[in-house]
């Protein structure tokens, strides 16, 4: 049985939402603090850290608010396919990053 088919208690959802909002508040603060902190020389490490925190934030929303932690197998299958194509899209972009035709002005 998926989460949305189980009997629901409004009070338990209000408690869950309170916890989720507090964590979102903390992760957002952590992202901002990381952005303004002096970490490393460039932006690479900062960007990696900030995106890692954003992934935690996204996991909370997808897992608890969208009930993805307890969904039907078919939805997971759809999402696995989506993830595969999303990684492919990003991967091909990265792969093609230095693949300039001859004569292209490169900075």
């Amino acid at each position, binding site marked *: 049985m998926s989460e949305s088919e189980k009997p629901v208690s*409004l009070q338990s959802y209000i408690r869950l939402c309170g916890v989720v909002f507090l964590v979102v508040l903390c992760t957002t603060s952590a992202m901002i603090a*990381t*952005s303004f902190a002096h970490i490393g020389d460039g932006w690479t490490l900062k960007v990696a850290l900030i*995106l890692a925190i954003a992934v935690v934030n996204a996991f909370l*929303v*997808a897992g608890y608010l969208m009930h993805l932690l307890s969904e039907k197998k078919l939805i997971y299958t759809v999402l696995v396919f989506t993830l595969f194509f999303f990684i492919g*899209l990003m991967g091909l972009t990265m792969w093609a990053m230095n693949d300039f035709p001859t004569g292209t002005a490169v900075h």
Partner: protein
Amino acid sequence: MDIPYTIESRPDTGLYNAKLGIWLFLASEVMLFGGLFSAYVLLRVGAAPGMWPHGWLNVTLGTINTLLLALSAITTLLAWAACKVRDFTKFKIFHGCTILLALSFLTIKSFEYHDKLIHYEIKLNNGTFADGHLVEKSPDFDLAKKTGTVTLHGRIATDEKDLMDLRSPEAKSAKLDEVTVAATDIKSMGNYGPRHNTFTAIYFTLTGLHALHIFGGTVVIFYFWGPGSRMWKTDPERFTNRIEVSGLFWHFVDLVWIFLFPVLYLT
């Protein structure tokens, strides 16, 4: 004719049809935003050293919008939970809050857009740049005819690179004042709209598409809160499923913002 499987699950999928439909739609949305995010990566990594903007966007407003969307995602979930426990009054309250939070988000976003559209960068004939928010244009100002003056609240920069990193100590210590420029001294002039540079182009594209999703979602939620809520009296189970499906879309819109905010405002 009755639409099948609007309430009960299909035996083969284990889901009611609308739920499978919204997840397939969200999968296509991931690819839509994924394409734009990959364009962002390409533009950012391909930018010349020192020419990718930092600190151009208002982090305070971005943070407020992040929290507004997080709160609206929560009220959407609570509206669905209220339907599940058959408490229609609480559903109305929670979904009403969602609509107000969404409208607040769009209002703040429009302020941010307005700020960019009245922010000008003027390239002067002597090679320097006047940069700042428009205060006024003289009545006879005409760039083509080279008549009149334009006044900005900002500063003069000797190099365009000085305008890129607004978090640098130099930019923070720069004194902002009223700068009046004669049209005869202007080589070119433009606001920080989408055509200003690749950053503003991808910023307006990504946030504009996201704002369109917010607007569309708000219209749907408003319909279920107002005229569409009549279904509650005739078919509460089906109405609850509709709220779940619209909620899933709303959570997805929140998810996109969770990545847009750090990518555009913080890095």
